[in-house]
């Protein structure tokens, strides 16, 4: 049986499905019997779900617009200086 620290160390790999079938089963047995690790697992999984759903770090419209201006200038400079 794994202790809490070992389960915590494997939490990320377990969330990503990157543990062996044997380790997966051991982690699941621990989570079923340990309220604290179960809480940490569930809230970490929820964290990743919320991050995905939040659409974090979408490019702001003004940044996108400035990029186009900058790239047009860059291409003009490159074309005139490179030839």
């Amino acid at each position, binding site marked *: 049986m794994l202790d809490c*620290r070992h389960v*915590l*160390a494997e*939490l*990320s*790999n377990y*969330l*990503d499905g*990157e543990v062996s079938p044997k380790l997966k089963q051991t982690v699941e047995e621990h989570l079923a019997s340990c*309220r*604290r690790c179960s*809480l*940490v697992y*569930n*809230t*970490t999984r*929820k*964290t*990743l779900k*919320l*991050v*995905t*759903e*939040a*659409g*974090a*770090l*979408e*490019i702001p419209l003004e*940044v*996108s617009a*400035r*990029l*186009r201006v*900058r*790239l047009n200038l*860059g*291409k003009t400079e*490159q074309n005139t200086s490179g030839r």
Partner: protein
Amino acid sequence: MSERVRDTKMSAGLLAPDDDLPLLDRIVAGDAQAFEELVQRHEERVYRVTIAITGNHEDAEEAMQQTFLKVYQHLGGFQRASKFTTWLTRIAVNEALQKRRRQRVTESLDDPRLTDEAVMPKQLRDWHDDPEKIYSKQQMREIVESAIQSLAPMYREVFVLRDVQGLTTQEAAEALGIAVSALKSRLLRARLMMREALAGHFQRPITLKSRIFQVRWKIQDALVAGFR
């Protein structure tokens, strides 16, 4: 990887076909509109990488510009052995890292030498079932982005590439030029720190039951520490 090996792997389902290749062919043939399409398709990917690594908009925007200019200038040399997005992300990482190295910061940008104790979960109350119903979409985005910005750079870049941008562990490690084991170690810490940062917004109120559990866990921790 040779074309033949790549084709074999593709037909075996080991590699997804690269959707960007037709667009790249048009750019190489001199189609200016195709380059604009490429920028539009990938600007968010590049923005996420550069803002995660530099931590500020000014440097992120300059790194974005340099990234797309390099893509334009060096596209003819792109070997197509890897996916275009892998190559693009790698360029964006390098440009952003160059910006970061020039930043005059007094804080340590690299390993803050967090102890295991520092990343041990401390917020130990259940969360609301539907935090999405408590906050608006805009508020949720601000809360999440603020939490991401609170991470030290070495954790922020890993978290953004892996969990915001959705790269695989291997792809993220390759883009950052670090070992998969190092990426996994940082990712675990980043995720636990993100959980801690978000917990304050999403936890249920303290109840007598949750208080009793917390006291019990503290006693358990103290006993375990005493045995070491």
